[in-house]
């Protein structure tokens, strides 16, 4: 019961964020999975299809926000609905932090996205569920930089 990886891809399939909670993946695997997942997800019709697909002994839970796909891969037995909600939570945190987040924010501040991700998720689990606390924490850390 854990998240295996979280990916943020744009519609062309470019990686905007890749967090692999399990270090057993090789670089080659990461690249292959990323492009396969993009192909899988971008071909699905969001209106009529669910946000879940089974892939490589995992379940992909994804959601599209404007031009970006937020994807997390979870265990087959994990709750898809809760994971979807936590992805949305992550996006909401980003949105507040950047004040209307867009793809360019993710490109130029990729390391900040990772910092925020590390406050939302830890060791493949969502660790904090209060938006205020996370933002407060990240801002405090930013001040120390």
């Amino acid at each position, binding site marked *: 019961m854990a998240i295996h990886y979280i990916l943020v891809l744009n519609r062309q399939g470019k990686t905007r964020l890749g967090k692999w909670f399990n270090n057993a993946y090789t670089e080659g695997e990461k690249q292959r999975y990323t492009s396969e997942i993009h192909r899988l997800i971008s071909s699905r019709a969001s209106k009529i299809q669910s946000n879940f697909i089974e892939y490589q002994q995992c379940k992909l839970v994804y959601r599209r926000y404007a031009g970006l796909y937020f994807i997390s891969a979870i265990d087959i037995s994990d709750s898809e609905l809760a994971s979807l909600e936590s992805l949305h939570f992550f996006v909401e945190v980003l949105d507040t932090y950047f004040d209307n987040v867009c793809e360019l924010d993710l490109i130029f501040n990729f390391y900040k996205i990772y910092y925020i991700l590390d406050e939302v998720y830890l060791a493949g689990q969502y660790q904090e569920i209060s938006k205020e*606390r996370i933002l407060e924490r990240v801002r405090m850390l930013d001040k120390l930089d």
Partner: protein
Amino acid sequence: MGSLKTFIKNVRKSKTIADERAVIKKESASIRTSFRDAGLDHTTRRINISKLLYLYILGEKTHFGQVECLKLLASPRFADKRLGYLATTLLLDENQEVLTLLTNSLDNDMQHPNPFIVGIALCCLGSVASADLARDLHGNVERIFTSNNPYLKKKACFVAAKLVDRDPDLAETFMPKIDQLIGEKSPSILLGVSRLIQAIYDASPESRPALVKTVPRIVGHIKRVVSTGYLPDYDILGVTDPFLQVSLLSTLRTLAMDSTCSEKYLEEINDILTQVASNIDTGKNPAHAVLYECIKTIFTIRSDQSLRVLGVNLLGKFLSSKDNNTKYVALNTLLTVISIEPQAVQRHRSTIVSCLSDGDISIRRRALELSFAILNESNVRVLVREILQFLENCQDNELKPYITSQLIYVSDKFSPNQKWHFDTLTRMLRSAGSDVSSESVSHILALIMQCKDTELKKHVISKLVSSWLHDSTQFCLSLVTIWTLGEYGDLVLESGIYTEETEKVIDDTLILSIIESGINNTTFTESETTLLVSYVLTAIIKLSIKFKRPESIERLRVILNSKTHDTNLEIQTRAVEYKEIFTQDLQLKKGILAKMPPPVMKEAQTMSLQGSSHQKSGRVDNSHAKNSTDNGNDLLDLMDDNTTTGVETNYAANSQDLLKDIFGDVGNSNSNPTTGTNGNQSTNNNILDLFDPASNQSRAVHAPEVSKAPDYANSNIAVTFIPRSVPQNGSATIEAIVRGQQPNASIEDLQLLIAVPKSQKLTIASAAGDNSLSNGKSIKQVLKIIGKEGSKIKLRVKVTYNLNHQNVEDMFDFAGIKETL
């Protein structure tokens, strides 16, 4: 060297991929060079590492920077440490010796007086927790539990859980902390504790009884969350702290399944589940997430009858939701619930069936599985009708073999009467006759042989023939139709049966036309064709004693003769043998060609019930093993193409043996050779009448493929040209079909180059299939030719391909179309 921002801008500015590569290569090289500088200051190093991270996101090689990451995180500055740890978690993998270097830094930083530094160190350990790191650093994590900082405590829980996952021996170390931690009230710490309990539960069976004792505390926490009102910090769309509820419920489920969980605890769990399930309004995703967890728990643990009914009702609500995600989880859960509460699931039959026409393929698949799972005597008519309809519109070829084998299984088991049974099977053959396994074909044939009712047999034949007239490209439908005509042709010839839709009388002429199109087909793969032609030959010899008109019999003989020189050994042998029988006197022939005795199905069934076989055949024994395991699984196992039921396999073995026995006799019989005349073109024309393009549009597309021989063939490939429309007004559309001639050869990278005379213009339109002919695939290409009216169509064709990895080139000319532009 510029800043990170300049680098990102430069990459984005690149107009071409080559430009981008150049920018990346240059930057990567300069980062490498600067890393070689021993006196590199931390600020430059930090900029370099941040660029390295960007390279990582782009998917570039970054391994050369790993040691630099460790150097950076050893810096006393917070900004350096933060980026250094981030880079380390992303760039390092667990198999590296560099990890040992990391141990020391982590050890120091986890004891740092600044809690923020401890926090980022914990975060790093949570990501790169190798078994070695787990053993070396668990003491530091333990120490953090005693601190009063809730932020660190929370992180420590998650990291500890990860360490236990990695090294199960550590469960003992962290077990004593649980008692104190479960008393915490902070939601995020509880989230961590819940995770830690599950990790320890999975890793250490000895700790389980002690963990089960936390059940009342967990129940208490859930109760508190449910009964607290609105908490702005933790509210998501009107649900208080759904994440914590989900996590606690899932831990509760793990603990409740343990054998040491007492009745009293179970009662408490039942109560809290009722409370959670009845307190939430459905409609929003967070609410559904919590309910979904409740439902899963209800059906996994020993829960009350009333609670289970509540669970199924909630799933019913989920099913009728507009949201596809909710539907998806509901169907998934119902599949597991069906074995526990079959009656309750039945009540949602109409909703399940309506999901068969959902827009989402994964929802359709699950609805299909469920439909088979809830099928029984009372609903077989309704459900099978729905499933057949689904099959007729099914575009997903992966699904079809599953559906057909399941349909055969359920119609065998629940069929209300024989007529219904046969009607179902013919309808199935008609819509998915190419996706039926050979076992299933044998089974259907055995069923027909079993049938004692002559009127019903006639009905079946009429159905089969009309289905075949409707679509003759369904392979197994052709097999069954041709076999049945051969075996029982006399029944229909005597009494003049009409086909259903076209109202044609089934007489010698119609049967002959079916036989000829079977012999001349080009739709099927080579192995399929061999099988089909064998069936046709058997039908011919059987019909030779059933036809009354001498010219029809003569026609049969001519067709049979045409196959005595076939290049396929199996077909040739059979044709020659049958040719011998053909000339025997009628009395002897009647003896040899008598009807097949129906295979004894009863025996097969009792055999499988007893569970042991006295037969010597290994195959039958095999099917027994299958029978016991498959019957339960095959309903659920959608992806397994080989799904068969034990009963079928028995039939298959049985009827195949019978066929062999009979053909064996035939082969041994001895007779005089005869000579025959070729000719008699009259019946040949029938086939053209039958497929008159004007009479039926849809047939016009298929028909030529069936009867046309390849326009060019060598030992590797065969190319057929089929005019899509009659050439007129100076334009023609032709379809080129390329097939492999050897089923086992690998033909890849096939290219079709076609040239027309200078006065004409050629456009090559869409191609169907990829560029490979391996495994019986074919390639179709549509050609459009425009030229002067009245000119003849001439093509020069060059085909290049890789045959078993060797390049081959074939060239030929084609002018086989009589009509002019």
